[in-house]
């Protein structure tokens, strides 16, 4: 087979997926960008090329500084939850993965424990989230317990419908997304590398920090991308756990869509996408994910 035909066959092999990708990803995305420049009324969207959908989002944002406008306040709030969820899921996820990969010696046990981690995923996201409510509410189990042991006299309010409950739910829902890729990276680490490090006189922490963590970088990066992109666009968890009192970009887009303000929603979506992509690009600058895939 000549080089030429083999090149053609490579393209042919890539074609089906490229088409699917084009049809279900590129085309809709382009449409979103196009519509974000359209005009709209209460009941129709009008082809046009205007920037007001974007300027409306940031209206008064600069003039009102240092007071934050809706867009800035919402992004600051969203980024706060992104950071908190990312940080906590990373620590927890790394810990769980480390235990599975290095502390459990038999493969059967590893697989069993790993599957155990996935059991919560047998129920839906929404159910797992809602199940926190009777636990954390004013008359919930946690408050009952705290009052019974005499730690507090009044029920604690901040357990539910607060930043705390939102973060808790995110961590609960998405830690596994960290565990899986980090575990995968850890399993590829040659045990001889670790032994060599110990032989060279490194202590446990040094091995962890100088050997395990660097070799897990791709896993950490992939897990981080999962968690960050999900939390950036989330509005259900923030809505349910935050008592709808906490803003999120997803909720703004959702409200706009339900009022048929599609162009405005599209503009918000484009901005959200741009910011999320920037975060991912920044991360892939630090870690070369492809190297490990």
């Amino acid at each position, binding site marked *: 087979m000549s080089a030429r035909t083999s090149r053609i066959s490579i393209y042919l092999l890539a074609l089906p997926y490229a088409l699917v990708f084009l049809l279900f990803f590129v085309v809709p995305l382009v449409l979103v960008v196009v519509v974000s420049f359209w005009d709209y009324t209460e009941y129709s969207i009008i082809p046009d090329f205007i920037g007001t959908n974007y300027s409306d989002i940031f209206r008064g944002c600069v003039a009102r500084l240092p007071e934050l406008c809706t867009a800035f306040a919402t992004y600051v709030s969203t980024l706060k939850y992104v950071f908190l969820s990312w940080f906590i899921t990373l620590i927890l996820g790394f810990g769980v993965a480390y235990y599975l990969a290095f502390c459990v010696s038999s493969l059967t046990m590893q697989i069993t424990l790993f599957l155990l981690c996935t059991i919560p995923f047998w129920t839906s996201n929404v159910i797992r989230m809602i199940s926190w409510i009777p636990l954390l509410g004013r*008359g919930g189990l946690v408050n009952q317990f705290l009052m019974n042991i005499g730690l507090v006299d009044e029920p604690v309010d901040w357990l539910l419908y607060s930043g705390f409950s939102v973060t808790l739910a995110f961590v609960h829902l998405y830690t596994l997304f960290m565990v899986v890729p980090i575990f995968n990276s850890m399993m590829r680490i040659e045990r001889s590398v670790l032994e060599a490090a110990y032989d060279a006189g490194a202590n446990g922490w040094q091995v962890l920090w100088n050997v395990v963590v660097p070799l897990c970088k791709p896993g950490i990066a992939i897990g981080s991308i999962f968690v960050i992109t999900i939390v950036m666009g989330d509005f259900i968890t923030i809505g349910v756990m935050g008592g709808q009192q906490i803003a999120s970009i997803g909720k703004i887009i*959702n409200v706009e869509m*339900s009022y048929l303000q599609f162009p405005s929603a599209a503009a918000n979506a484009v901005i959200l996408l741009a910011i999320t992509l920037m975060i991912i690009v920044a991360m892939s600058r630090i870690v070369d994910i492809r190297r490990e895939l």
Partner: protein
Amino acid sequence: MTDTIDHGRRKLLKTTAGVAVAGSFISGAPYVMSQEKKVLRYLGTAVNQSAEIAARAKEDLGITIEYIPVTTDEVTKRIITQPNSFDLVDTEYFSLKKLVPSGNLLGMDASRIKLFDEITPAFTKGEINGKKIGDQGTAPKKVFYLKGEKSTEFSDEPTQWVTLIPTVYNADTLGIRPDLIGRPIKNWSELLNPEFKGKASILNIPSIGIMDAAMVVESMGEYTYPDKGNMTKDEIDMTMKILTEAKKSGQFRAFWSDFNESVNLMASGEVVIQSMWSPAITAVRSKGIDCVYQPLEEGYRAWAAGFALPSTIKGQKADLAYEFVNWFLSGWAGAHLNRQGYYSAVLSTAQANMEPYEWDYWMLGKPAEKDIMSPSGQKLASAGEMRDGGSYETRMGGVACWNAVMDENKYMVRKWNEFIAA
């Protein structure tokens, strides 16, 4: 009341599922064409899409009703974006300002509605027993008639073409937990009373939430709106400022946007005073928890819904739809709705389908002669109890404003998002 609660749950699941896929733009459930000939795809909110009504329609007319239950906003979105996906829609009057100009709905032919003249004058003239009722906001009488079958303009004069044939309506107010409040509540302003700090809630559906907020602002004596249902930008700013200040000082425990959320907030005692809908009150009560739909001095915020046909509907389907609409007004369905605390469009036929003691309790505001049961046989009130707010005439007569779409709707939605972010 298990029936209503089940609906609530179903609706919650559907709503959350809908929300979950909202990002994918097309959020309709896939529809499988049935083999049966007499089928109507009925788009609406779960409010009056009860399984009993569908079963009874099948029995009486042989028509299979396929419900497409979505949220209020989603109904509007569907009519605008997918007018082919239903044969009959049950939507709210206030949405009409968006729907009619789109041309996706057909005027209903009044001459084909047998009981048209029996429809309560609350719709046609905006009065009850000759007495004018509040008409701020999108009162049904303002958007009742069209200039022609396919017209995209409302007519001030009665015509043959009606926008919606009314199905169900009610007067909404605040719900309270009297056991946790322990004193009488008489005014809308109590929603922002610091006494209930961290124990109040308002609904997070901008077009309805702002109306509740306006009732509160007027009750506080801050401002009297020329028309609460059509605020100017300044009025919107002022209203949202008052709400935002309350939010920042921690007045609200949570906001709700789904029927079931309001039930949970109230039943768990997280909230003791909040905007609420009548079946939600019933749902809380059926858990054995004291909950009152509190009549307030400033009056009620009313809403109303009705049937329309999509402009794409063809001959035989349209006949079926008219047959069903006529049946709906003929009494059985009306009685079914009245027994859940709603009001039906044609009262005389509903009365004929209810026991006299039921009618006395639900419509005349008299003490219950015997225990009052829900359509599914759960006890709603004991003998001797009276309906919150009293008779039909007192409740609907006390309407202050109607759910509305404002001219400044775009601005209002933006301000509402700002409020949530504050």
